[in-house]
């Protein structure tokens, strides 16, 4: 049988985080790495359970009981600060009443190497601690690179959305596209009519039947507006339930009024969503480019807006033209 002294030097090499304990539960010798954690307090001679707090198995409070559980996995931590946590394994030495506890940092290794400035010389050559530390750093660096790619992709997606000309829900043009087309028509001095259309009672459909029903209504409304206009007219969704229609080359009030009335009549037809009737209606205000000497996009839009409010004031499902002579009262 090897002597305790020989055993100590053997363990120093093989597992520098061992604690050799005698039959009374006092520490006889500790590995160099364990002692390095408490350089000012020699551990030899102290009671094992005074230095280490046993967290598991919970049933064990006395040292002799610990000895009766050879091979048990222990969870320990220092009694004093910093309370570094350890995994441990106890093995009794046959015939001597002594035992060896081999310690490992387990997952607390990341903090331990920092708190105690450990180096690779503090770990046994077969310990995977260094590989673990390497892997943590390598993976963090790789993760950082992936994360920055994700951020850039997200930024690119937002930019693409911003540059998009389509309203994704309805497939209609969006406000950006509408601004662009309007600007083009004005700069080429083309004549056109601009209709501002607002769905009435849309909010109550949303509230009563949910957003899916609301989305359905918007999609149906979009189809109706596309059906009632020519392919080179513009239909844009410019807000939640607001639409702008640009009718190119038409300034005849009778024609425009009949378009608007057809639109309103179609949109007033109840729509069925999963068996439930969704009833909306529409109000329309129209402004003509010819109502302005020098039309500006902002002015034409504002004029159509005023006409829309006049239509709404008049009760729902109405169409009104902008009246350039009086912003307050429009003629039908």
């Amino acid at each position, binding site marked *: 049988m090897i002597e305790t002294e020989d055993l100590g030097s053997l363990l120093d090499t093989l597992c520098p985080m061992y604690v050799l304990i005698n039959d009374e539960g006092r520490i006889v010798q500790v590995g160099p790495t364990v002692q390095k954690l408490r350089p000012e307090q020699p551990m030899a001679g102290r009671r094992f359970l005074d230095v280490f707090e046993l967290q598991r198995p919970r049933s064990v409070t006395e040292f002799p009981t610990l000895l009766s559980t050879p091979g048990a996995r222990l969870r320990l931590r220092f009694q004093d600060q910093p309370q570094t946590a350890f995994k441990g394994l106890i093995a009794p030495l046959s015939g001597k009443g002594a035992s060896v506890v081999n310690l490992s940092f387990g997952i607390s290794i990341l903090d331990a190497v920092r708190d105690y400035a450990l*180096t690779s010389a503090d770990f046994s050559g077969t310990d995977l601690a260094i590989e673990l530390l390497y892997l943590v*750093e390598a993976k963090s660096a790789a993760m950082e690179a992936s994360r920055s790619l994700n951020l850039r992709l997200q930024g690119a997606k937002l930019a693409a959305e911003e540059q998009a000309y389509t309203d994704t829900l309805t497939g209609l043009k969006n406000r950006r596209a509408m601004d662009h087309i309007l600007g083009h028509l004005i700069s080429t001095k083309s004549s056109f009519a601009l209709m501002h259309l607002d769905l009435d009672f849309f909010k109550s459909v949303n509230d009563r039947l949910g957003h899916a029903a609301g989305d359905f209504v918007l999609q149906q409304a979009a189809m109706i507006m596309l059906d009632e206009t020519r392919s080179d007219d513009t239909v844009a969704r410019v807000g939640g339930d607001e639409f702008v229609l640009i009718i190119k080359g038409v300034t005849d009030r009778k024609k425009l009024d009949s378009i608007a009335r057809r639109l309103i009549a179609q949109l007033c037809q109840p729509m069925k969503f999963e068996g439930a009737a969704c009833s909306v209606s529409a109000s329309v205000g129209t402004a003509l480019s010819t109502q302005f000497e020098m039309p500006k996009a902002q002015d034409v839009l504002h004029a159509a807006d005023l006409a829309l409010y006049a239509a709404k004031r008049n009760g729902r499902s109405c169409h009104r033209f902008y009246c350039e002579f009086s912003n307050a009262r429009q003629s039908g």
Partner: protein
Amino acid sequence: MHGLINRAIQSFVCATYGRQCWLQATQAAGLDFVEFEAMLIYEAEVSDRVLEVLCTELNRRKSEFLEDLGTYLVSHRNMEDLRRLLRFGGVTYVEFLHSLDDLSDRVRLAVSDLTLPDLELQEHSSAEYQLYCSPGLPGFSSVMTGVLRAMADDYGALVVLSNEERRNGSELISITLIESAFAEGRHFELGARKS
């Protein structure tokens, strides 16, 4: 070619010759982008073209350019993470040299689709070593020569390096260790906190 390799070239050029130089090179090489993404894979031909253009514009031999890239990867403060990963290889320069046998495996452990040529160190005496670089990534031994040179500084070792190409396409770096503790070297702690 893995984005990390392209990104390394980009980072080296921007830090050493300026961003303008990089932008010109991407244009001259006919790239329709200016930023390589570290975690995407690119056609090897794209990387070759950029490298050719850079060497022409900077009027440098490719082997020299790549060796400087290797030095940059270890010594520049942008690349502190990489230096640390290499320092995990060992406590001394010689230990580090021996750890190079595992380099390609270590790299794969961190980034599974980044494949580097295998390296094999042969120790002829305690001062004479040869590092064999398997074929597969032309110029890799030039980069490694730069890495070995900068790592010697990092450990405070004094070495002489020479690099030759062999007939079978593999490349060979001869390392002569003159003094292992020539200078203080740079500090390394296992548990350094990121600042």
